[in-house]
């Protein structure tokens, strides 16, 4: 389905390249892309099919909304973080291409087109990681290339095997084909291969090796975008979409999903404790939170999938906020090493407060939005009989709270060290992006129960 979510950014990109390449007009793409991302959010919240040229269901709407929000915030804050005008122009163009890929993944109903656009988003991410042309960035990008290539090949071979069973690549024909010849060795093999490809793309525990290096080595603006949405809207969203509309979640697949997610939640949360680099800690936290999304999916009930998608949105909000905070620390205080930073709370009050809010949302402390999604996931697990996993999910929340508070204490609350760190003034865009995301977290957390009662 060719929708305006794909066409509009393409036109912005092409027109900018053709007409606005003079140095005075370098910021045209900045404003137009901001307007587009705002329009995407508005279009998704109030669905007007006349402007979208396609039908979207609620799953796609959550994904499109998160993509629009994170891309908006990324581009907005890049004005402060990325000083070089021409580099920022290339950055925004690549973000637009990645957004095209993710929007198409969110709206398509065809397995092969999904693969094509997932690959577009990944290749745009490679270039984005290597944008600054630093040594570590190249290494992180190369690791991402390796894992992504293996995932690609897995998904392609799964498509080849599925073509033997179904006559086409659209979701409907695949579902019919699977239903006709179910409980076949070949089908389970194909699904397993496809699932492991998606696990690699989404960065789930046994295959999470590339996540930390790619996120840590990427430039600051890029890691907001990558960690906030890029790998989730391709890998994790596709997993949910596939479970929802292609194969019914059978018992073996459920147990695999639950086990993998439990491993990734616990392991990444423990590893996050031992990190000194703030971005690396946040990437481990990202792996752990993706585990929650998959755990919600793994219990297979509609309530669980609702919780998973709600946590998907929440994760996009609080993780991009945390990465914006680390970018703000890096650009204003000059470092993001947590053993050097100390006593930043008085110098950067907005950053300290918003990162506390985002951290509480990550850990699931009551008034924040993350609390509700974790509550839904744990309730769904409990109701469908997976009590052990519900216990693991609840326990890992405490671990999460632990490392978040440790970060807060080291960076913001501790007494300033003898060697004073000079802090540059905050720009309007950074403060605006931080407060916007924090306001979303708090208001969703507070108003959600009322909103649910009204409906």
């Amino acid at each position, binding site marked *: 389905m060719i929708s305006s979510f794909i066409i509009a950014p393409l036109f912005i990109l092409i027109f900018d390249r053709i007409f606005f390449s003079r140095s005075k007009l370098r910021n045209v793409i900045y404003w137009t892309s901001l307007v587009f991302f705002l329009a995407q959010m508005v279009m998704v919240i109030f669905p007007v099919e006349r402007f979208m040229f396609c039908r979207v269901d609620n799953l796609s709407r959550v994904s499109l909304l998160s993509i629009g929000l994170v891309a908006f915030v990324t581009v907005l804050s890049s004005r402060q973080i990325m000083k070089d005008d021409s580099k920022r122009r290339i950055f925004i163009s690549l973000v637009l291409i990645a957004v095209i890929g993710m929007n198409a993944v969110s709206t398509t109903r065809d397995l092969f087109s999904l693969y094509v656009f997932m690959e577009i988003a990944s290749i745009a991410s490679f270039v984005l990681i290597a944008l600054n042309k630093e040594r570590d960035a190249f290494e*992180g990008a*190369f690791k991402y290339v390796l894992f992504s290539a293996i995932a690609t090949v897995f998904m392609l*071979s799964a498509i080849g095997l599925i073509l033997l069973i179904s006559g086409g690549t659209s979701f409907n024909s695949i579902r019919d084909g699977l239903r006709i010849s179910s409980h076949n060795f070949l089908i389970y093999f194909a699904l397993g291969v496809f699932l492991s490809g998606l696990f690699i793309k989404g960065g789930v525990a046994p295959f999470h090796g590339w996540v930390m290096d790619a996120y840590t080595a990427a430039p600051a603006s890029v890691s907001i975008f990558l960690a906030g949405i890029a790998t989730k809207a391709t890998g994790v969203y596709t997993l949910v979409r596939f479970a929802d509309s292609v194969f019914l979640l059978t018992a073996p697949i459920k147990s695999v999903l639950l086990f993998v997610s439990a491993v990734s939640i616990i392991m990444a949360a423990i590893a996050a404790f031992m990190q000194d680099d703030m971005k690396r800690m946040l990437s481990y936290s990202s792996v752990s939170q993706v585990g929650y999304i998959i755990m919600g999916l793994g219990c297979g009930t509609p309530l669980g999938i609702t919780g998973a998608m709600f946590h998907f949105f929440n994760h996009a909000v609080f993780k991009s906020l945390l990465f914006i905070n680390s970018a703000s620390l890096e650009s204003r205080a000059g470092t993001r090493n947590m053993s050097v930073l100390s006593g930043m709370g008085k110098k950067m009050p907005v950053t300290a407060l918003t990162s506390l809010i985002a951290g509480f949302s990550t850990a699931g402390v009551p008034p924040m939005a993350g609390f509700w999604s974790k509550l839904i996931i744990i309730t769904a697990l409990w109701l469908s009989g997976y009590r052990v996993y519900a216990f693991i999910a609840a326990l890992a929340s405490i671990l999460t709270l632990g490392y978040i508070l440790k970060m807060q204490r080291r960076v913001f609350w501790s007494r300033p060290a003898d060697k004073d760190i000079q802090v540059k003034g905050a720009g309007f865009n950074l403060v605006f992006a931080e407060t916007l995301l924090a306001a979303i977290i708090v208001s969703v957390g507070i108003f959600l129960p009322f909103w649910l009662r009204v409906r």
Partner: protein
Amino acid sequence: MTLETLIRFWPFFISVVMLFIIGLYCMLVTYNTIRVLIGIELLIKAATLLIIIAGYITNHLALTQSLVITMIVIEVIFITVAMGIVMGIFAHNKGSLDVRDTRNLKG
């Protein structure tokens, strides 16, 4: 799938599996970054062969051919960008393509 068609196509499936093994071995065992890309190429070739065979067996040749054409375009762009990254690694490592000289990030 009747037994006859299976016997007819069994050599093709065997060679797909063999290509997979060769490609994975090439990717995982070597230390040279360009050779890693060659391993990725071999893996993609195996997947291409599998899709072509699937199209032939199920007689959906038009569909699978159009899929393979799209795949080839993706493969070219993928390899070009990956090659750019390899050249960047080369430029930053004092002219070495060895992965062992590259490991800087840990974790």
